[in-house]
């Protein structure tokens, strides 16, 4: 593992993408970033541009009109990247999505469009649950970054 990979694992930057849905998961995600739960303990920083990010956090189901934007944001995140789907809508479509008949407005869960690494189910998930998911995402990032075993990285 090079110096850059090591630094990336110890301070992953996070981009928060709200696709659709009811905004509940966004509030919980912001609560996780706030001092009470404080994911910034892990060196995480919320960045305003996907070009600076390592972890992409998507919340909400994906409406059909939003498909090109999600694709573009995913492509803009530099490699190695990890996608964390937060909430029932991003994981499985939940209330807004039905397999049969097909919905004219909603595509469904995030993994129909982009490869998702960690799923955090819940409606809405607790901030602690989101931290759990993001920590799993960091471990995935370490795996992707190099071939070094993840054991040495975990505290």
């Amino acid at each position: 593992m090079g110096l850059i990979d090591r630094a990336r694992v110890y301070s992953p930057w996070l981009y928060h993408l709200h696709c659709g849905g009811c905004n509940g998961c966004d509030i919980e995600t912001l609560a996780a970033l706030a001092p009470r739960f404080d994911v910034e303990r892990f060196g995480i920083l919320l960045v305003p541009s996907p070009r600076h990010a390592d972890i992409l956090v998507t919340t909400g189901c994906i409406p059909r009109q939003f498909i090109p934007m999600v694709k573009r944001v995913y492509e803009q995140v530099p490699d190695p990247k990890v996608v964390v789907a937060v909430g029932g809508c991003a994981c499985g479509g939940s209330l807004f999505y039905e397999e049969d008949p097909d919905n004219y407005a909603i595509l469904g869960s995030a993994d129909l469009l982009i490869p998702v690494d960690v799923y955090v189910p819940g409606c809405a998930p607790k901030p602690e649950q989101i931290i759990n998911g993001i920590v799993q995402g960091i471990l995935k990032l370490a795996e992707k970054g190099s071939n070094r075993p993840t054991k040495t990285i975990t505290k």
Partner: protein
Amino acid sequence: MSTHIRILRQVLAKYSTPMTLKYPSGVDPNKKYSQIPEGLRGFIERDEEKCIGCRACYMVCSGRATKIIDTPEKRTVQVFHFRCTFCAHCQECCPEEAIKMTNRFELAVSDRNDPKVYANTDLKMLICKSCGTSYLPEKMQKRALERLSEKINPRVKETVIADYKKVEGYCPDCRRARGVMLDTHTKKHVWLEAT
């Protein structure tokens, strides 16, 4: 003025200790999850002995997370937690009180097919003597008969139970076909009461 000073004192007392919960690496296991409220709805657990497969949870499920998968041998009642909205409707409507929502909320997984996010219950199905199709879970029929004998009008109880024994083992379609042959009309007890 004294009230203000009191409030200020309380606020300062609260903020003198660190506010952050060190969640994943908490040292004290009792303090690790200090934020779990009492009514938190998490992973859905189903009591396999109590569940009779009546599909009530499937009918009320708001996120369509509950699925009924029927095969000739068994009926599987499944909850897929990715789709679940944790609304506890299934817990409320369950007639046997088999469903219970636990406090477990750490459900983050990296695979869609992880057994951690599924709650499955398998039930044995009854097979029709005549046509060979499966029609009802064994437990559900047993429980239905129990409830019937509890709640039925005692005057017609004997007739109905005797009729039920005659058609036991047949699927609903075959029962209907044999109604005349076995003398089991559904409204027979009404006619009996009238005479």
